[in-house]
Protein backbone atom coordinates (compact mmCIF):
# COMPACT_ATOMS: atom_id res chain seq x y z
CA UNK A 1 0.00 0.00 0.00
CA UNK A 2 2.10 2.88 -1.24
CA UNK A 3 -0.36 5.56 -0.22
CA UNK A 4 0.27 6.92 3.21
CA UNK A 5 -2.24 9.70 2.84
CA UNK A 6 -5.95 9.55 2.40
CA UNK A 7 -7.36 6.19 1.32
CA UNK A 8 -9.65 5.81 -1.68
CA UNK A 9 -13.26 6.59 -0.86
CA UNK A 10 -14.59 3.08 -1.41
CA UNK A 11 -12.12 1.67 1.15
CA UNK A 12 -13.07 4.35 3.64
CA UNK A 13 -16.70 3.42 3.21
CA UNK A 14 -15.94 -0.30 3.61
CA UNK A 15 -14.03 0.38 6.83
CA UNK A 16 -16.84 2.48 8.22
CA UNK A 17 -19.29 -0.32 7.55
CA UNK A 18 -17.00 -2.84 9.24
CA UNK A 19 -16.74 -0.53 12.20
CA UNK A 20 -20.52 -0.30 12.40
CA UNK A 21 -20.87 -4.10 12.32
CA UNK A 22 -18.17 -4.58 14.97
CA UNK A 23 -19.70 -2.01 17.30
CA UNK A 24 -23.12 -3.59 16.94
CA UNK A 25 -24.66 -0.52 15.30
CA UNK A 26 -25.65 -2.88 12.47
CA UNK A 27 -26.65 -6.12 14.30
CA UNK A 28 -26.36 -9.43 12.52
CA UNK A 29 -29.40 -10.24 10.42
CA UNK A 30 -30.49 -6.61 10.24
CA UNK A 31 -30.93 -4.63 7.04
CA UNK A 32 -28.32 -2.03 6.18
CA UNK A 33 -29.07 1.17 4.22
CA UNK A 34 -29.14 0.97 0.43
CA UNK A 35 -26.35 2.02 -1.91
CA UNK A 36 -28.39 5.08 -2.86
CA UNK A 37 -28.63 6.11 0.77
CA UNK A 38 -24.89 5.73 1.32
CA UNK A 39 -24.11 7.58 -1.90
CA UNK A 40 -26.50 10.43 -1.09
CA UNK A 41 -25.32 10.73 2.51
CA UNK A 42 -21.59 10.74 1.75
CA UNK A 43 -22.03 12.64 -1.56
CA UNK A 44 -20.25 9.98 -3.54
CA UNK A 45 -20.96 8.37 -6.88
CA UNK A 46 -23.26 5.36 -6.46
CA UNK A 47 -20.75 3.22 -8.37
CA UNK A 48 -18.11 4.05 -5.73
CA UNK A 49 -20.51 3.19 -2.92
CA UNK A 50 -21.30 -0.06 -4.68
CA UNK A 51 -17.61 -0.90 -4.93
CA UNK A 52 -17.09 -0.33 -1.20
CA UNK A 53 -20.10 -2.37 -0.20
CA UNK A 54 -19.20 -5.18 -2.58
CA UNK A 55 -15.96 -5.63 -0.64
CA UNK A 56 -18.07 -6.64 2.36
CA UNK A 57 -20.38 -8.75 0.26
CA UNK A 58 -17.52 -10.75 -1.23
CA UNK A 59 -15.99 -11.10 2.24
CA UNK A 60 -19.25 -12.72 3.34
CA UNK A 61 -20.06 -9.96 5.84
CA UNK A 62 -23.12 -8.71 3.98
CA UNK A 63 -25.53 -10.53 1.71
CA UNK A 64 -28.07 -9.28 -0.80
CA UNK A 65 -31.70 -10.29 -0.96
CA UNK A 66 -32.99 -9.60 -4.44
CA UNK A 67 -35.48 -6.78 -4.52
CA UNK A 68 -35.39 -6.28 -0.75
CA UNK A 69 -31.95 -5.02 0.17
CA UNK A 70 -28.74 -5.88 1.97
CA UNK A 71 -28.37 -7.59 5.34
CA UNK A 72 -25.60 -8.25 7.83
CA UNK A 73 -24.60 -11.92 7.61
CA UNK A 74 -24.84 -14.21 10.64
CA UNK A 75 -21.40 -14.58 12.15
CA UNK A 76 -20.16 -11.36 10.50
CA UNK A 77 -19.06 -9.89 13.81
CA UNK A 78 -17.06 -12.95 14.83
CA UNK A 79 -15.50 -13.08 11.38
CA UNK A 80 -14.50 -9.43 11.59
CA UNK A 81 -13.13 -9.86 15.09
CA UNK A 82 -11.04 -12.76 13.92
CA UNK A 83 -9.81 -10.77 10.93
CA UNK A 84 -8.96 -7.86 13.14
CA UNK A 85 -7.20 -10.08 15.70
CA UNK A 86 -5.02 -11.48 12.96
CA UNK A 87 -4.26 -7.96 11.77
CA UNK A 88 -3.55 -6.96 15.35
CA UNK A 89 -1.09 -9.82 15.67
CA UNK A 90 0.63 -8.98 12.39
CA UNK A 91 0.71 -5.19 12.80
CA UNK A 92 1.26 -4.75 16.54
CA UNK A 93 2.23 -7.92 18.43
CA UNK A 94 5.07 -8.93 16.13
CA UNK A 95 6.47 -5.40 16.19
CA UNK A 96 6.18 -5.28 19.95
CA UNK A 97 8.02 -8.57 20.41
CA UNK A 98 10.78 -7.53 18.03
CA UNK A 99 11.28 -4.27 19.95
CA UNK A 100 11.27 -6.19 23.25
CA UNK A 101 13.96 -8.53 21.90
CA UNK A 102 16.01 -5.54 20.81
CA UNK A 103 15.81 -4.19 24.35
CA UNK A 104 16.85 -7.59 25.75
CA UNK A 105 13.60 -8.27 27.57
CA UNK A 106 12.69 -11.92 28.14
CA UNK A 107 9.18 -13.37 27.86
CA UNK A 108 8.42 -13.04 31.59
CA UNK A 109 9.47 -9.42 31.63
CA UNK A 110 7.43 -8.73 28.51
CA UNK A 111 4.39 -10.49 29.97
CA UNK A 112 4.72 -8.44 33.12
CA UNK A 113 4.89 -5.21 31.14
CA UNK A 114 1.84 -6.21 29.12
CA UNK A 115 -0.09 -7.01 32.30
CA UNK A 116 0.88 -3.64 33.74
CA UNK A 117 -0.30 -1.91 30.58
CA UNK A 118 -3.50 -3.93 30.53
CA UNK A 119 -4.50 -2.75 34.01
CA UNK A 120 -3.30 0.84 33.48
CA UNK A 121 -5.51 1.36 30.44
CA UNK A 122 -9.19 1.22 31.02
Amino acid at each position, binding site marked *: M*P*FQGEKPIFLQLAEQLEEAILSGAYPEGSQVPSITEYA*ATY*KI*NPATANKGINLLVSAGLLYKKRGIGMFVAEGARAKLRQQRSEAFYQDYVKKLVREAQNLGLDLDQLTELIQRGYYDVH
Partner: protein
Amino acid sequence: MSIELQSISKRFGSTQALDQVSLTLEEGHIYGLLGNNGAGKTTLLSILTDRLRPDFGQVLVDGQPVKNNDEALGKLFLVGEQNFFPEDMKVKRAFETAASFYPDFDLEQAHKLAKEFGLPLKKKITSLSTGYASIFRLVLGLSVNTPYILFDEPVLGLDAQHRDLFYRLLIEKYSQEPCTVIISTHLISEVENIVDHTIILRDGRILRDAPTEELMENTYAVSGPAGMVDRYTEDKTILSSHSLGGLKTVSIQGQPESDLPLGLEVSRMSLQDYFISLQEAAEREEEPA
Protein backbone atom coordinates in the same frame (compact mmCIF):
# COMPACT_ATOMS: atom_id res chain seq x y z
CA MET B 1 -26.67 5.75 -26.33
CA SER B 2 -24.23 8.62 -26.17
CA ILE B 3 -23.46 12.23 -27.02
CA GLU B 4 -20.67 12.56 -29.52
CA LEU B 5 -18.77 15.74 -30.26
CA GLN B 6 -16.85 15.42 -33.50
CA SER B 7 -13.92 17.84 -33.76
CA ILE B 8 -15.86 20.91 -32.73
CA SER B 9 -14.26 24.30 -33.29
CA LYS B 10 -15.71 27.70 -32.46
CA ARG B 11 -14.15 31.11 -32.72
CA PHE B 12 -15.41 34.40 -31.30
CA GLY B 13 -13.54 37.25 -32.96
CA SER B 14 -9.88 36.66 -32.13
CA THR B 15 -10.57 34.06 -29.42
CA GLN B 16 -10.53 30.39 -30.30
CA ALA B 17 -13.17 29.27 -27.78
CA LEU B 18 -13.02 25.61 -28.80
CA ASP B 19 -10.30 24.00 -30.85
CA GLN B 20 -11.13 20.64 -32.46
CA VAL B 21 -12.77 19.17 -29.40
CA SER B 22 -13.82 15.54 -29.73
CA LEU B 23 -15.62 13.82 -26.88
CA THR B 24 -17.95 10.94 -26.25
CA LEU B 25 -20.31 11.10 -23.31
CA GLU B 26 -21.64 7.64 -22.54
CA GLU B 27 -24.91 6.79 -20.88
CA GLY B 28 -24.96 6.16 -17.15
CA HIS B 29 -22.11 8.32 -15.92
CA ILE B 30 -21.73 11.53 -13.99
CA TYR B 31 -19.25 13.63 -15.90
CA GLY B 32 -17.30 16.50 -14.42
CA LEU B 33 -16.45 19.21 -16.92
CA LEU B 34 -13.69 21.23 -15.32
CA GLY B 35 -11.82 24.27 -16.47
CA ASN B 36 -10.90 27.81 -15.53
CA ASN B 37 -12.97 30.79 -16.62
CA GLY B 38 -12.81 31.09 -20.38
CA ALA B 39 -11.73 27.48 -20.87
CA GLY B 40 -14.75 26.91 -23.10
CA LYS B 41 -17.11 24.97 -20.83
CA THR B 42 -20.21 27.08 -21.45
CA THR B 43 -19.47 27.34 -25.18
CA LEU B 44 -19.19 23.56 -25.34
CA LEU B 45 -22.50 23.04 -23.56
CA SER B 46 -24.18 25.70 -25.73
CA ILE B 47 -23.00 23.95 -28.89
CA LEU B 48 -24.21 20.62 -27.52
CA THR B 49 -27.68 22.09 -27.23
CA ASP B 50 -27.59 23.82 -30.64
CA ARG B 51 -27.79 27.28 -29.09
CA LEU B 52 -24.47 28.14 -30.65
CA ARG B 53 -23.40 26.76 -33.99
CA PRO B 54 -19.87 25.41 -34.30
CA ASP B 55 -17.62 26.74 -37.07
CA PHE B 56 -16.57 23.16 -37.75
CA GLY B 57 -17.63 19.74 -36.56
CA GLN B 58 -20.93 18.36 -35.40
CA VAL B 59 -22.71 17.01 -32.36
CA LEU B 60 -24.58 13.71 -32.39
CA VAL B 61 -27.07 12.64 -29.75
CA ASP B 62 -27.72 8.90 -29.92
CA GLY B 63 -26.41 9.02 -33.46
CA GLN B 64 -28.52 11.97 -34.66
CA PRO B 65 -27.07 15.40 -35.41
CA VAL B 66 -28.55 18.04 -33.07
CA LYS B 67 -28.82 20.77 -35.70
CA ASN B 68 -32.50 21.78 -35.91
CA ASN B 69 -33.39 18.35 -34.53
CA ASP B 70 -36.12 18.44 -31.88
CA GLU B 71 -35.93 14.74 -31.23
CA ALA B 72 -32.22 14.87 -30.40
CA LEU B 73 -32.50 18.19 -28.54
CA GLY B 74 -35.45 16.93 -26.51
CA LYS B 75 -33.16 14.36 -24.91
CA LEU B 76 -31.02 17.14 -23.44
CA PHE B 77 -31.72 19.64 -20.74
CA LEU B 78 -29.17 22.34 -20.05
CA VAL B 79 -29.35 24.13 -16.74
CA GLY B 80 -27.14 27.12 -17.36
CA GLU B 81 -25.97 30.32 -15.81
CA GLN B 82 -27.83 32.28 -18.44
CA ASN B 83 -31.54 32.92 -18.28
CA PHE B 84 -33.53 31.92 -21.36
CA PHE B 85 -36.93 32.57 -19.88
CA PRO B 86 -39.03 35.61 -20.80
CA GLU B 87 -38.56 38.51 -18.43
CA ASP B 88 -42.05 38.47 -17.00
CA MET B 89 -42.43 34.70 -16.60
CA LYS B 90 -43.21 33.43 -13.12
CA VAL B 91 -41.71 30.29 -11.60
CA LYS B 92 -44.98 28.40 -11.66
CA ARG B 93 -45.62 29.09 -15.34
CA ALA B 94 -42.05 28.13 -16.17
CA PHE B 95 -42.71 24.72 -14.63
CA GLU B 96 -45.94 24.37 -16.59
CA THR B 97 -44.21 25.44 -19.78
CA ALA B 98 -41.42 22.92 -19.22
CA ALA B 99 -44.05 20.24 -18.68
CA SER B 100 -45.70 21.06 -22.01
CA PHE B 101 -42.39 20.87 -23.88
CA TYR B 102 -40.98 17.82 -22.09
CA PRO B 103 -43.50 14.96 -21.85
CA ASP B 104 -41.58 13.32 -18.98
CA PHE B 105 -41.34 16.47 -16.88
CA ASP B 106 -42.62 15.67 -13.39
CA LEU B 107 -44.66 18.70 -12.32
CA GLU B 108 -45.46 17.21 -8.94
CA GLN B 109 -41.77 16.60 -8.26
CA ALA B 110 -40.95 20.18 -9.29
CA HIS B 111 -43.45 21.58 -6.82
CA LYS B 112 -42.20 19.26 -4.10
CA LEU B 113 -38.58 20.29 -4.69
CA ALA B 114 -39.51 23.97 -4.84
CA LYS B 115 -41.04 23.59 -1.40
CA GLU B 116 -38.00 21.74 -0.09
CA PHE B 117 -35.68 24.50 -1.30
CA GLY B 118 -38.06 27.30 -0.27
CA LEU B 119 -38.43 28.58 -3.83
CA PRO B 120 -41.42 30.94 -4.19
CA LEU B 121 -43.66 29.88 -7.09
CA LYS B 122 -45.35 33.21 -7.63
CA LYS B 123 -42.22 35.26 -8.16
CA LYS B 124 -40.93 36.34 -11.52
CA ILE B 125 -37.81 34.44 -12.51
CA THR B 126 -35.91 37.64 -13.20
CA SER B 127 -36.66 38.98 -9.73
CA LEU B 128 -35.07 35.98 -7.97
CA SER B 129 -31.73 36.46 -6.21
CA THR B 130 -28.70 34.70 -7.72
CA GLY B 131 -29.07 31.86 -5.25
CA TYR B 132 -32.75 31.33 -5.89
CA ALA B 133 -32.27 31.67 -9.64
CA SER B 134 -29.83 28.77 -9.32
CA ILE B 135 -32.32 26.82 -7.25
CA PHE B 136 -35.02 27.46 -9.83
CA ARG B 137 -32.86 25.93 -12.55
CA LEU B 138 -31.79 23.01 -10.38
CA VAL B 139 -35.42 22.17 -9.65
CA LEU B 140 -36.08 22.14 -13.41
CA GLY B 141 -33.06 19.92 -14.00
CA LEU B 142 -34.06 17.48 -11.28
CA SER B 143 -37.64 17.23 -12.54
CA VAL B 144 -37.25 17.17 -16.32
CA ASN B 145 -36.32 13.46 -16.65
CA THR B 146 -34.39 13.72 -19.90
CA PRO B 147 -31.74 11.07 -20.63
CA TYR B 148 -29.03 13.73 -20.50
CA ILE B 149 -28.96 16.53 -17.95
CA LEU B 150 -26.30 19.20 -18.26
CA PHE B 151 -25.57 21.44 -15.27
CA ASP B 152 -23.47 24.54 -15.98
CA GLU B 153 -22.23 25.96 -12.68
CA PRO B 154 -25.23 24.51 -10.85
CA VAL B 155 -24.51 25.79 -7.35
CA LEU B 156 -23.67 29.39 -8.20
CA GLY B 157 -24.59 31.62 -5.26
CA LEU B 158 -26.03 28.76 -3.23
CA ASP B 159 -25.37 28.49 0.50
CA ALA B 160 -23.73 25.37 1.94
CA GLN B 161 -26.99 23.83 3.09
CA HIS B 162 -28.64 24.14 -0.31
CA ARG B 163 -25.54 22.91 -2.11
CA ASP B 164 -25.57 19.86 0.10
CA LEU B 165 -29.27 19.33 -0.59
CA PHE B 166 -28.69 19.59 -4.34
CA TYR B 167 -25.91 17.01 -4.41
CA ARG B 168 -27.99 14.64 -2.30
CA LEU B 169 -31.04 15.02 -4.55
CA LEU B 170 -28.91 14.64 -7.66
CA ILE B 171 -27.38 11.37 -6.43
CA GLU B 172 -30.78 10.05 -5.40
CA LYS B 173 -32.24 10.88 -8.79
CA TYR B 174 -29.25 9.47 -10.62
CA SER B 175 -29.33 6.15 -8.77
CA GLN B 176 -33.07 5.75 -9.13
CA GLU B 177 -33.31 6.44 -12.86
CA PRO B 178 -30.52 5.78 -15.29
CA CYS B 179 -29.40 9.00 -16.92
CA THR B 180 -26.28 10.84 -17.90
CA VAL B 181 -25.28 13.87 -15.91
CA ILE B 182 -22.71 16.47 -16.88
CA ILE B 183 -21.63 18.97 -14.26
CA SER B 184 -19.48 21.90 -15.26
CA THR B 185 -18.11 23.64 -12.20
CA HIS B 186 -15.38 25.63 -10.51
CA LEU B 187 -16.06 23.98 -7.17
CA ILE B 188 -14.04 20.85 -7.84
CA SER B 189 -13.67 19.62 -4.28
CA GLU B 190 -17.44 19.39 -3.91
CA VAL B 191 -17.92 17.12 -6.89
CA GLU B 192 -14.72 15.09 -6.90
CA ASN B 193 -16.29 12.06 -5.26
CA ILE B 194 -19.45 12.39 -7.34
CA VAL B 195 -18.09 12.56 -10.88
CA ASP B 196 -16.91 9.19 -12.11
CA HIS B 197 -15.45 10.65 -15.28
CA THR B 198 -13.48 13.86 -15.54
CA ILE B 199 -12.95 16.12 -18.52
CA ILE B 200 -10.52 18.99 -18.09
CA LEU B 201 -10.63 21.82 -20.59
CA ARG B 202 -8.05 24.50 -21.03
CA ASP B 203 -8.11 27.29 -23.63
CA GLY B 204 -10.65 25.41 -25.73
CA ARG B 205 -8.73 22.15 -25.75
CA ILE B 206 -9.07 18.95 -23.80
CA LEU B 207 -6.26 18.35 -21.33
CA ARG B 208 -7.70 15.18 -19.78
CA ASP B 209 -10.66 12.94 -20.51
CA ALA B 210 -10.67 9.81 -18.35
CA PRO B 211 -12.43 8.01 -15.51
CA THR B 212 -11.80 9.98 -12.34
CA GLU B 213 -10.38 6.93 -10.56
CA GLU B 214 -7.90 6.30 -13.35
CA LEU B 215 -6.74 9.92 -13.20
CA MET B 216 -6.31 9.76 -9.45
CA GLU B 217 -4.41 6.47 -9.55
CA ASN B 218 -1.93 7.94 -11.98
CA THR B 219 -0.81 10.87 -9.96
CA TYR B 220 0.70 11.40 -6.55
CA ALA B 221 2.60 13.92 -4.50
CA VAL B 222 6.01 13.46 -2.93
CA SER B 223 7.39 15.65 -0.20
CA GLY B 224 10.58 15.77 1.77
CA PRO B 225 13.96 17.53 1.90
CA ALA B 226 14.46 19.44 -1.37
CA GLY B 227 17.67 17.59 -2.34
CA MET B 228 16.13 14.17 -1.87
CA VAL B 229 12.96 15.10 -3.70
CA ASP B 230 14.95 16.45 -6.64
CA ARG B 231 16.97 13.24 -6.88
CA TYR B 232 13.84 11.14 -6.71
CA THR B 233 12.00 13.09 -9.37
CA GLU B 234 14.87 13.24 -11.87
CA ASP B 235 13.35 10.60 -14.18
CA LYS B 236 9.70 11.44 -13.52
CA THR B 237 7.04 13.65 -15.09
CA ILE B 238 6.60 16.60 -12.78
CA LEU B 239 3.33 18.51 -12.91
CA SER B 240 4.07 21.13 -10.31
CA SER B 241 6.41 21.78 -7.43
CA HIS B 242 6.33 23.97 -4.38
CA SER B 243 8.94 24.68 -1.73
CA LEU B 244 8.40 25.72 1.83
CA GLY B 245 11.80 26.44 3.30
CA GLY B 246 13.85 23.27 2.77
CA LEU B 247 10.73 21.17 2.35
CA LYS B 248 9.69 20.47 -1.20
CA THR B 249 6.43 19.01 -2.47
CA VAL B 250 6.17 17.80 -6.04
CA SER B 251 3.16 16.43 -7.88
CA ILE B 252 4.01 13.68 -10.29
CA GLN B 253 2.23 12.04 -13.17
CA GLY B 254 2.50 8.27 -12.81
CA GLN B 255 2.31 5.63 -10.09
CA PRO B 256 4.58 5.50 -7.06
CA GLU B 257 6.92 2.54 -6.53
CA SER B 258 6.26 0.44 -3.45
CA ASP B 259 9.80 0.91 -2.09
CA LEU B 260 10.49 4.57 -1.69
CA PRO B 261 13.69 6.14 -0.42
CA LEU B 262 13.45 6.64 3.35
CA GLY B 263 12.56 10.22 4.31
CA LEU B 264 10.21 10.84 1.42
CA GLU B 265 6.51 10.91 2.01
CA VAL B 266 4.06 9.98 -0.68
CA SER B 267 0.44 11.06 -0.66
CA ARG B 268 -2.65 10.69 -2.78
CA MET B 269 -3.78 13.87 -4.51
CA SER B 270 -7.25 15.31 -4.52
CA LEU B 271 -8.90 16.03 -7.87
CA GLN B 272 -8.68 19.72 -7.08
CA ASP B 273 -4.92 19.55 -6.39
CA TYR B 274 -4.46 17.52 -9.54
CA PHE B 275 -6.43 20.09 -11.54
CA ILE B 276 -4.31 22.94 -10.18
CA SER B 277 -1.09 21.03 -10.87
CA LEU B 278 -2.16 20.37 -14.45
CA GLN B 279 -2.92 24.05 -14.96
CA GLU B 280 0.49 24.97 -13.58
CA ALA B 281 2.18 22.44 -15.83
CA ALA B 282 0.30 23.83 -18.85
CA GLU B 283 1.24 27.39 -17.93
CA ARG B 284 4.89 26.42 -17.69
CA GLU B 285 4.73 24.87 -21.14
CA GLU B 286 3.09 27.95 -22.64
CA GLU B 287 5.77 30.29 -21.30
CA PRO B 288 8.32 31.23 -23.95
CA ALA B 289 11.52 29.34 -23.23
